[in-house]
């Protein structure tokens, strides 16, 4: 089977994308019903070089999650950073179920790097809006505000002010 159908998603909009490898090593890619001839190679230890219908692109393609099979990618294309998810049909259905579940569950705010807790801006039980500041961490000589990733209630605070924290340390949970 050298033809495969995927669902490519960006900001909740899905496109059907069919990839077929030709005998000469290039690809026929049909995206939203439009066919493209694509010559694709990896050079320079990883950079993708694509010639799509004679247009040339260097693309940095990085995995957006730990698992290869999740199909989450961040692509750097001519200066723009674009997040896309590419999954085959079966996988897509699965991740939709998981995805909905995990969005609703409690979210843990972690420290992005080693530092010191300067100020905790919320209390346990307090309600917060998505994107509102919840805690201030000093790291690399700068104070950095961390924000709520979703609206909800502060269910737990694991650190106290002036405490030193490691990178990835759990700071607080929003339910």
């Amino acid at each position, binding site marked *: 089977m050298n033809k495969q159908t995927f669902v490519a998603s960006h900001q909740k909009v899905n496109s059907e994308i069919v990839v077929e490898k030709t005998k000469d090593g290039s690809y026929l890619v049909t995206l939203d019903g439009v066919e493209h001839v694509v010559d694709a*190679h*990896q050079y320079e230890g*990883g950079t993708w070089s694509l010639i799509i219908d004679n247009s040339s692109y260097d693309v940095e393609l*990085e995995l957006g999650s730990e698992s*290869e099979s999740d199909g989450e990618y961040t692509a750097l294309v*001519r*200066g723009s950073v674009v997040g896309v*998810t590419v999954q085959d049909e079966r996988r897509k259905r699965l991740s939709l179920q998981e995805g909905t579940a995990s969005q609703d569950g409690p979210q843990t705010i972690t420290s992005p790097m080693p530092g010191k807790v300067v100020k905790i801006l919320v209390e346990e039980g307090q309600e917060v809006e998505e994107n509102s500041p919840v805690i201030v961490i000093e790291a690399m000589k700068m104070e950095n505000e961390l924000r709520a990733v979703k609206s909800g209630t502060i269910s737990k605070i694991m650190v106290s002010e002036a405490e030193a924290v490691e990178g990835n340390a759990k700071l607080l949970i929003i339910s």
Partner: protein
Amino acid sequence: MLKKVLVANRGEIAVRVMRTCREMGIQTVAVFSEPDRAALHTRYASEAYAIGPAASAESYLRIDKIIDVAKKSGADAIHPGYGFLSERAEFADACAAEGICFIGPSSHAITQMGEKTLARRTMIAAGVPVVPGTEQAVTDLESALKHAEEIGFPLMIKAAAGGGGKGMRRVFEASEVKSAIETAQREAQAAFGDNSVYLERYIGNPRHIEVQIFGDQHGNIIHLNERECSIQRRHQKVIEEAPSAFVDPQLREKLGAVAIQAAKAVDYVGAGTVELLMDEDKNFYFLEMNTRLQVEHPVTELTTGIDLVREQIHVASGDKLSHLETPVPRGHSIEARIYAEDPQRGFMPSPGQLSFLRQPGGYGVRIDSGVYAGYEITPHYDPMISKLIVWGANRVEATQRMDRALSEFVVNGVTTNISYLRRIVQHPAFAAGDTQTNFLEKYLDDESPAPSSTKLDVAKISAAIRQYEFSHELANRMVTQQGDSSTGGLSAWASNGRRANLRGGSYE
């Protein structure tokens, strides 16, 4: 002439100084903290000495250890770079006490200019215009509030020992004074080991203009024209250029004369910078004098043709200035600071390993960097990756070149501000020279714009082909053709090397 120079610094500026030393046939001595064993300055130097753990207070700020290394290695001079000990009078004194040449001004000049309230008084005495404010550091809230009422709102609270935007806060009304002073004091204490702060009138949306000056031991002081560094975020310079589009030859002469006046007031020797605030009517006020090389010194080098580090070394050796007249600025130069930080997350530092690094090249492009592919940006120091400096025959050409060079710059493994910088130099307001210090607030969202549909298609096609190959496990065939063989026999998919958190995209 000096024979061996210890560079009491790290990162790009240490490498910058060592490069000129190598050109001049001068041996170099690096000092390094534990995590900096892998840093480029440690590898680039002729000699390298460990001086302690990551914390600067235990390594790069330890005068005793550094002087010890200088003596042990037989260095006859110390270059302090910028930051760290570069503006500590006691460091200059310690060098003098050991007969080591300090490549910088006298400790007297450092003291006069280093303590901001003293500098203000000195400048007032020398007839240099200053922003109205307190002449002494404020010690208690009560007097602070009194001064604040006199000065009027909005006003600035600034660290007396400060620089670089640390320990600086803007205050709009009396009720904010207390918390702003506390934050400023906390930051000042952490950054400079001194929590003194003072108050100053806030100049609305000024330009940040600074004048490079240079003095020798024979009493000559010249200026090397201005730089404009108005594009700032939270008082941190982001884009710097020379000359300023806002300054004409007459104003340049006036600025230069004032800067020389300021420098002469403290018998200045070596490279220094007089920072000024300039309002829309081209009134300007003394802000502070930095008694060291600036981060942005390359834009002056590219428009004057003078290697400022070489000049520093000559002046420290007792030579006269190479130029006794100010060169007319030639063409235009712009610097952009490439940081490992995430504009989408409040410019949070993004430490990590640079799994891939491609720096730009070609005509008019200069890279000053202390990193390499595989290097890890640690959380211990400034997350700077590189300084990208361009030169063009005029401001338009330089701006276009900066955008082109940024388009070639690729860093994987950490999130960077590269696309944010491109949005600055592509902005019509930048082209128009409408560059007040509120430029970023006024013109730029932190959110990057949505990708064009073509780019989105390219991203989808790339990812689909990648996913296709992954699921077909045809990986090995792809690698052999022309791929970097450093992955050895490993499949490209199995290699983690280029997998990293280039953030900023939004997943479905």
